[in-house]
Each structure stands twice: as C-alpha cells, then as structure tokens.
C-alpha cells in the first residue's frame, strides 16, 4: 500500500495532468475559435481546471492535517 507522501505525490501528478489538459483546451480556442473550441474551452476546459484546482487544494489540506496544523 502506498505511503502518505507517495499518495500525495500521485494525486499532485494527477492534478498536474488534468490541469495541462484543461489549459490545452483553452489554448485550442485561442488558436482557432469556432463554436466547438469555444464550448469545449469554456465547459470541458473549465471543468478540468476546476478539477485540478480541487485536487491541489485537497492535497494541501491533507498535508496540513497530516502535519497537525489543521
């Protein structure tokens, strides 16, 4: 079973991957704006960015609790 730091590391990597996918959706709309890229960037891109943010915040909170700060 993965230890706490390892689990934290994996979820941060996952947050990074999700974030990059979300940002790529935004970049696609900047390069070529059409109804499809617009909707994808605003909805799916936004969802991925929000998800990565949530993963990151969850990691920070988990780390703070583990250290007994929270």
């Amino acid at each position: 079973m993965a230890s706490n730091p390892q689990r934290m590391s994996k979820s941060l990597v996952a947050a990074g991957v999700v974030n990059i996918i979300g940002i790529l959706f935004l970049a696609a709309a900047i390069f070529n704006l059409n109804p499809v890229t617009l909707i994808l960037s605003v909805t799916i891109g936004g969802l991925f960015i929000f998800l990565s943010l949530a993963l990151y915040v969850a990691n920070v909170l988990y780390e703070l609790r583990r250290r007994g700060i929270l």
Partner: protein
Amino acid sequence: MGTPTFVGLVMALAAVNAELAEYDPGLSLIKNVTLFICIITILLVGYKTLLRHKTLAHPTTKWVLFIAFLILSPLAYFLNLGIAVQESKPVSFCNSCHPMEVYVEDLLNPDSELLAALHYQYRWISDHQCYTCHSDYGIFGSAQAKIAGIRHFWSYYIAGYETPIKIRGTYNNARCLHCHAPVKNYQEIPEHESNKEAIKASKMSCIGAECHVSPHPKPEERRGAKDGV
C-alpha cells in the same frame, strides 16, 4: 517540442494575431497575454509535477504549484472566457454554422433590400450585426445571448433542430427601439405614436402588414430552401 513545430506554432499565432489586430488591437493583446499565461502554466505544472515530481515536497515547488494552480490557471480561464464572449459576436462567427449561411449570404448580397442586409451594407449597425439585433441590451442581454448560443450549439451538434428554423419566442422590439425610438424621423410617423405601447411591449411586430419588410429571406426564398434551412 521540435524547432519546426515551435516555428509552426509561432507562425500560426502570428497569422491569427495579424487578422485580429486589424479588427481589435486590445483584444489581440489580451489574447497574447492569455496564451503566454497558458504556456507558462503548462511549463511550470509539467516541469514540477511530471518531470521533477520527486521534488514535490520542496518549498520552491510548493510555491510554483501554488501560483500555477491557484493564480495562473483560473486567470487563464477567465481571460479566455472574456475573449470567447467578445470573439463570438462577429457575423463571421455566426456564419460558422451551416443554417446561418443563407442568412449571411443575403446580408452580403448588394441587391438585397431586406432589413438585415440594409442594416449591414449601409453600416447602420457598425459591427456585430447579427449579435446586435439578436441580443437584448444590457448585461443580462449579453448573458441571455450566450445561453442562447449554448442552446444553438446543443441543437446543431447534438439534439438536432426543426427546419425551417424559426426565432424562439417573440422578437423583442426593444432591440429596434434602442436605436430608432430617439430618432426624430421615427417619432414623426403617426403609426409609431398611435401604437406606441403595443410596439414597446412587443405585442405588435415592426415587420409585416404595411410597416417594414422582412429582415431575412422567407423560407421559400432561401437558396438553401431545398436543404430545409
């Protein structure tokens, strides 16, 4: 990323920028800034979480990720949202979808005497002609127009739509009155005065009867009538 790919990306961006800068230099600048933020975010997040993930516990990495996740990413999203809202207003964007082609074709037809074509060709509306006449004024008008845009996207790509396409609900005369009501020529027409309340409440259309010609070609007059658009 190889050099040819990078050069290709830069050239594509330069082409997009040249077109956009002519149209709106301010928007072009925001677009560049947003793209820069996107690239920086990808580089920072990619480097720290994928390439150097063993240093995640390092304080510098924590600060970098804090900035990338909590500041740069949301900033890029909201800047992109602003660009998307602004760039979805031109006639060319409306013309991206097939059902709009016959309407835009008439708009560009110099022989057309229909209302929308006259507004477009004489530049009675300087730009964003489709958007101006099909969205209400004020902040809620823009929000409603964007919600309508999402509904159009859904119908066009997923749910399907009935042909010939028709405007949803009743056309809001306030869109016409916003420009025309304060004009002396408009106020001098007796019918405008006698039907003032009905026109204002959109209970009486400006189009048809003995009043004004249709804004767009009727279904049977459209070039794409056979296609049912």
